[in-house]
């Protein structure tokens, strides 16, 4: 009947079962990342940065003499696929997991890592809940979403002193928790939230929602979004001549070079929260940023810097670890206290988070088409420009 076909299919299946032979001296690290799909842009920045870090570590003799051999698997931004990859890696004996980008994938990976007792280092997923589960094996290097905008809020309180704020955010875990955090911060500063509205990520037109904002005339417009929406929002704000004393973004889409490339002059003077900038005086930060730019033509965003630094963190953890088992690396991670290109990294249990690194956040402003660090003043690369000129006064 269908026998030949069945046999052919089973051979195909069986061949896929065969594991790839691993060499003893190398440390093979496969990283799950979204390399296709909507958030592939972030995956790409991170992939390049992982590669650069591995190259540098290997040139300096690897981890305790073992070179890192990097591999990548495309999770396509789907939790099931991310989980499949991680199940395979853990089963295949990889003692530690690093990577993923979207919060929903990171949550799926974190749950697997915890139940399989394998340390997982989150490098760029921001949803607060990831490190609030009392997980023992989940570490996060980037700041939690609740604190993403700390420096920006500080800047707002000291310089802008607005009375009203409009918060626009996309309907994702990242957008929602970012907007909630900003609402709380605004209330603390006594700023009145005149509107807090979500929109469908990837919407083709924001004019209805922006017209509504315009009619409310807020002092500050704060937006949380991934890449494409950020530039479209600013372009349409310009077209509508929506005037506010300050336009601001909550990291992600507002803090990567594509934002300025796409929004062009509409991006000028926009302030954004961010976790990292290329001009910081952390050890190796500028060298990494310049090297990245020389290679790929643009400065990396904080996602890249975090990915880049994560391998150095891993190296520190594995150098300290007595053995390279999951348990050993987990204890090594807990003991990490390292100054990296991404800033100081140390995993703490506080404010209801576990194994969370609390990095100082920053505010950046687009000035003449370049991101400049403006806040906190200790890290500022240029003084901030405020007040921001009205649209008609701009050339």
């Amino acid at each position, binding site marked *: 009947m*269908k026998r030949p*076909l069945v046999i052919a299919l089973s051979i195909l299946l069986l061949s896929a079962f065969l594991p790839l032979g691993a060499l003893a001296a190398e440390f093979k690290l496969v990283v799950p990342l979204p390399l296709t799909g909507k958030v592939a842009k972030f995956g790409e920045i991170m992939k390049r940065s992982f590669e650069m870090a591995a190259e540098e570590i290997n040139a300096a003799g690897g981890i305790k003499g073992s070179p890192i051999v990097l591999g990548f698997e495309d999770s396509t931004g789907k939790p099931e696929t991310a989980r499949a990859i991680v199940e395979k890696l853990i*089963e295949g004996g990889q003692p530690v997991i690093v990577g993923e980008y979207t919060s929903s994938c990171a949550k799926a990976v974190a*749950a697997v890592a915890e139940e399989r007792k394998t340390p997982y280092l989150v490098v760029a997923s921001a949803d607060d809940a990831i490190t609030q*589960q009392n997980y023992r094996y989940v570490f996060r290097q980037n700041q939690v979403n609740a604190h993403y905008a700390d420096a920006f809020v500080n800047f707002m309180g000291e310089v802008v002193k607005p009375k009203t704020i409009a918060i626009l955010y996309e309907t994702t875990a990242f957008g929602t928790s970012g907007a909630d955090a900003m609402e709380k911060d605004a209330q603390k500063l006594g700023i009145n939230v005149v509107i807090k509205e979500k929109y469908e990520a990837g919407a083709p037109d924001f004019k209805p929602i922006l017209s509504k904002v315009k009619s409310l005339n807020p002092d500050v417009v704060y937006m949380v979004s991934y890449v494409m929406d950020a530039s479209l929002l600013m372009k349409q704000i310009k077209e509508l001549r929506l005037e506010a004393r300050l336009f601001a973004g909550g990291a992600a889409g507002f803090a990567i070079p594509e934002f300025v490339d796409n929004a062009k002059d509409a991006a000028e003077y926009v302030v954004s929260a961010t976790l990292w900038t290329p001009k910081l005086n952390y050890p190796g930060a500028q060298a990494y940023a310049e090297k990245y730019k020389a290679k790929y033509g643009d400065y990396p965003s904080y996602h890249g810097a975090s990915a880049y630094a994560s391998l150095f963190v891993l190296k520190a953890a594995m150098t300290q670890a007595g053995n390279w088992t999951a348990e050993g690396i987990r204890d090594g991670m807990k003991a990490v206290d390292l100054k990296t290109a991404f800033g100081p990294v140390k995993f703490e249990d506080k404010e209801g988070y576990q194994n969370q690194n609390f990095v100082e956040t920053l505010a950046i402003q687009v000035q003449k088409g370049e991101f400049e660090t403006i806040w906190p003043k200790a890290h500022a690369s240029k003084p901030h420009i405020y007040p921001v000129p009205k649209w008609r006064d701009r050339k």
Partner: protein
Amino acid sequence: MRAPVANPGRGRPLAVLAALAALPLIALVPGVNANYWMHNFILVVMWSIIGMSWNLLSGYCGQVSFGHAAFFGIGAYTAGLLYAKLGLSAWWGMLASVPVVGAAALLVGFICLRLRGPFFALSTIAIGVILRIVAENLVGFTGGDQGIMIRERTWVEKTWYFYIILAVAAATFWFVDRLVASRLGYYFVAIREDQDAAESLGIDTTRYKTIALVLSAVICGLAGAFYTSYMGYIDPKVVFALHDVSVMAIMVVMVGGVATRWGPAIGAVIMILLAEIIRTIPKVGTAHHTLFGVLLIVVIIFLPNGVVGDAGALRRLLRIRRPS
């Protein structure tokens, strides 16, 4: 479209079930990533259930749904909310989802089944999208975009998950098989072939279409409730996804074979397992979307009735002669 009922003697369901039940034994094969493969097998079986559900409504009864994510999502959220709000195990969701999804499907049927053909299909798209947006906005109830996260899943091991979903799949298979061969099944096919003719023969088409919808929805909801327990995390974008759930359900059946007995199962193997294998081929796998897309185009051009539906053509295509 094919003949209503496949030859019941063919296919040997019990033999297939026995073979599937032995799959967890791959843990005994040295050098095999048992957990990884079990994860994929679980997803395949889960998708075959969703496929059978879609096949019942759209394949046999001819009411093409683009909104099965609605039922999948309601099932998933029933389980998730039992856990998050009442502190119960999410497994109760598989039981609770039956009345909840059934009631939701009645309501959907009341609205959408007044429409025919493409209009029905469009309205189901709307239902799926509306439910996603509702789940995103009822923050106090569903947790909105933050989703629902189950802190600790029941088992680390996959074997039990596999047997649970396999049991649901076997029951669904048996149920659909019986249903299609029954009077009800003939009514469904009559409605698919010509609704007006069916009506003129005295079949209460609205009633039977509603029955098909509710049964199909409940089956799909079971898969959704299972998903919550198995994955431990749901959010509106994941479980009410238009592309990743609704369209996927259609593709599973289209590729496998519409209105065939084994179509959904074969389709799930191709859409999940083959997609995963292509994704993990070293080097070439980078272009997995392209490769898989080409494969789907080839299937649709040469096997318009699906792999099972056009098994004869497939044999000719591969120049495989029928033995004996």
